[in-house]
């Protein structure tokens, strides 16, 4: 099943008279367009982000509309989330659901940044959870330590935070 953008080709001109060249233009143009992939930009996110669309005042409705209508969403499932449910609960998402694609992750991956930050704050190893170069950088710059200035308040609700 191919996803297709319908196109109509319009040729204006004198056609004084019409010739085989004019007719060939259509054939050549059609072949070219049928072989042209259309580049698209889509927002890739986890199902938890999809849920945050429901959080009051977190997203502008107009922005959500433009993202799903004009661009499109590719949403990767996460344990404990029901993306289909989130979509059915939101009128905007429902209306543009053809533009929202749910990617099934065959191997469940629950490595969340929240867990990483917590582990680092408790001095635990995160090796094999994030790339080595990133671990090195975190160490070199003293990020996410218990006393780290960027830790932020820990009392915010889980819903508002995205991993």
């Amino acid at each position, binding site marked *: 099943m191919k996803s297709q953008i319908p196109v*109509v080709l319009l040729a204006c001109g004198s056609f004084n*008279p019409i010739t085989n060249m004019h007719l060939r233009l259509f054939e050549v143009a059609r072949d070219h367009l049928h072989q042209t992939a259309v580049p698209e930009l889509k927002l890739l996110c986890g199902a938890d982000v999809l849920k945050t669309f429901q959080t009051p005042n977190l997203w502008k409705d107009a922005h959500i509309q433009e993202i799903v209508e004009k661009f499109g969403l590719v949403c990767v499932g996460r344990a404990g989330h029901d993306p289909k449910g989130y979509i059915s609960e939101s009128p905007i998402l429902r209306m543009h659901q053809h533009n929202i694609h749910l990617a099934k*992750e065959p191997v469940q991956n629950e490595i969340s940044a929240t867990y990483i930050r917590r582990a680092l704050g408790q001095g635990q190893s995160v090796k094999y959870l994030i790339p080595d170069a990133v671990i090195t950088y975190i160490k070199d710059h003293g990020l996410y330590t218990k006393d780290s200035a960027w830790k932020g308040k820990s009392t915010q609700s889980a819903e508002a935070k995205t991993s």
Partner: protein
Amino acid sequence: MWRYLDSIEPCFVAQAGVQWLGLGSLQPPLPEFKRYTVVKGIISPVGDAYKKKGLIPAYHRVIMAELATKNSKWVEVDTWESLQKEWKETLKVLRYLWCNQLCQRYRGRKIVPQSSVLFFPAVPKVKLLCGADLLESFAVPNLWKSEDITQIVANYGLICVTRAGNDAQKFIYESDVLWKHRSNIHVVNEWITNDISSTKIRRALRRGQSIRYLVPDLVQEYIEKHNLYSSESEDRNAGVILAPLQRNTAEAKT
């Protein structure tokens, strides 16, 4: 539970298995990029008010175009432009045809709400098909309104079929407006060179030379039967200023 009214096909981006929302298909289809599908080709002969030298009446030109597309399954002739009393800018023709496509799409269709959602079938995009000569005519002073060119490339798009692909690319590069909307301008290389211009056809006819295999047989027979092209016909509109030049120059003066 989820239903589609018409075939809106979502697209695939990632390589991971993608599950369709609402298609109800049992197996995930293979991922592919979105492609264009050309659903129709339209030939719109210009009206007589264009006043080009050698332009014979639209009546004949339309019939010849219809004869040429008689056996085509997807290319057809639209006569709206040819029937207008005043010359119409190309942008106006694009707009008219786009509205037409929009109306056709919805004519007689009941949009039925399912789960309180309305599904709208995709309206085809209308793109202007042309050769390099039309593209390069953008540079002719007063032939095109600059705001028209902008709207054509920004809102519709151009497919330029030419054997001189590099010249076309260079032309786009040298124009800020065309460059800005270059993703909407497709330059297609015509490897099998086709140089059958109408001018050469008319010249051959004046000299009594054969045009067989240069135009469709039905067109050749029609031209012969009605003796359409001669030195006299080539002199039509001699000395008359081309309609767009007249209009744009006049408007520039005001």
